């Protein structure tokens, strides 16, 4: 962790404009609306983009669409959460399957000593990647819950979605249902 009093957090949503592969960017957009201003939020088109942004970062949180992710019971909409290092992320195949994939990027950063001490990866099970398509109906229905679940980690003490926080006297209650372990 850096010597500064406030640890620096980077959230990176990896995605593309193609169907469910949008989810990383959509989560980044949504988080921007209510995350603390000291949290850096970025959209990446390829996992290797992350390598440009790690300097001085203490916590890295990544969200990417995935296919063939390991089975999980972590949520009722197939949101997977891993804390690096984990063998499960190593088997994750990103929908945005560029050759230097997310596991390789994390391993490389680790090897070079640039990987932040805390790395959390969210994999969102994806159904369709049609060019310029919107999210599939199932994922669209789960989008808010996914954002809210990821926001718990991004916080790390979430100040709440602006509107909901105001309505709730500043207290934010995620609406996620069915979550089991946070440490899949």
């Amino acid at each position, binding site marked *: 962790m850096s010597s500064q009093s406030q640890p620096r957090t980077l959230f990176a949503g990896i995605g593309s*404009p193609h169907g469910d592969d949008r989810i990383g960017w959509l989560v980044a957009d949504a988080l921007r609306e209510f995350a603390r201003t000291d949290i850096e939020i970025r959209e990446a*088109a390829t996992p290797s983009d992350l390598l440009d942004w790690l300097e001085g970062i203490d916590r890295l949180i990544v969200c990417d669409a995935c296919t063939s992710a390991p089975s999980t019971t972590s949520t009722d909409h197939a949101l997977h959460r891993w804390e690096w290092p984990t063998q499960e992320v190593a088997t994750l195949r990103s929908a945005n399957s560029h*050759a230097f994939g997310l596991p390789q990027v994390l391993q490389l950063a680790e090897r*070079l000593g640039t990987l932040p001490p805390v790395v959390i990866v969210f994999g969102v099970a994806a159904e369709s990647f049609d060019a310029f398509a919107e999210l599939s109906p199932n994922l669209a229905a789960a989008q808010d819950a996914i954002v809210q679940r990821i926001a718990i980690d991004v916080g790390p003490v979430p100040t709440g979605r602006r509107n909901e926080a105001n309505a709730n006297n500043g207290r934010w209650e995620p609406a996620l249902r069915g979550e089991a372990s946070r440490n899949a």
Partner: protein
Amino acid sequence: MAEARTIKVEALTRVEGEGGLFIRLDGDRIEDVKLSIYEPPRFFEAFLRGRRLEEVADITARICGICPVAYQMSAVHALEMAQGVTISPEIRRLRRLLYCGEWIESHALHMHLLHAPDFAGVDSGIELAEHFPDEVNRGLRLKKHGNELLEVLGGRAIHPINVAVGGFYRAPKKDDLLALLPDFEWGLEAAIETARWVATLTFPDFTRAYDMVALQHPDEYAMNEGAIASTSGKAVAVTDYETHYEEFHVEHSTALHSGRANGHASYHVGPLARVNLNLDRLTPRARQLADEVGIDWPCWNPFQAIIARGLELVHAYEEAIEIIRDYQPFAPSRIDYEHHTGAGCAATEAPRGLIYHRYEVDDAGLVTFAKIVPPTSQNQQQIEEDLRDWLPRVLHGDDSQTARDCERLVRCYDPCISCSTHFLKLTIDRGESS
């Protein structure tokens, strides 16, 4: 009777996108070599029809996360031809600067993380980082410079949004560009070291008689403009591209292959073709380096494309520094035009090679036809032919080693299979393979 063997590489590692390789042998006789593409087709060309021509640059930029500028540049130049727009010298120069950013980002990534491992006796960029941490860190810094330049010029690094038909939506601020200079001055020296480093790698002694094709311009190292030159014939105008080069369907791939129009002979596009055809138009330090790296140009060894990339990396830094130093804000940043029915085409040089676009638009400014020929689809046939020659040298008892050796050759082309946009309908290629 000779033993029949099949070698399959289900997913090519360190290749952008999804592709596979299929090799069938009868003893030592090569029966079949196929580079398969099985990424779900993306119907970008169909998707563009009916869209406003102003949307095309942003839509095509999203075809690939690695080389959005290449798609944008070919698109806007083609559409400017269709609308009779002549851009100013200032806009033209800024577009070259933007392309420099993409070449730096893409070449640095490919050289250090995807290709150098093949010559360093390691299996991945991660392993390479263990043996060559300084070189890999250097490569990552260079890659970052490219992205930072794209961010200043393009509005953002990922899928730049500032490129418009007629110019740029907003000219960059001088101070924003000047702020990049210290990094770029360091980067130029680092790029030279990188080029020298890759020249020391050990390359297989493998040369072929290629028909190499790239843009050529009388006054500059061609990026955005020029005639389509070839190492085996006369240069032709970009407007004649489809007369001389043709796409065709092969059953094992959902992407179209390209070949010479008469007989579909293969050709080779990419940095090696560019350097071979434009050696004397490299910037001074890149040109000097070309003499130092121990190659008697033209070079016909595809493995040494990594050296050509190194020279272009140096070139891109040198040119970028010159443009940034001379830059003065200008107006208008975008040339106005009125919609009218028209057609236009353009070819530019993506990091991986020549990329050709053609569009037709109606008097309301809507696209009625789009054709995109990316570099990887042009190189596909060439890669298969290379593999036929390469295979006898790498046939071992160990199929997995043979497969790895074949992958090495494929990676020389830095194929971006997700960029092979010109897909056919799935119904055409299902169930028809022999």
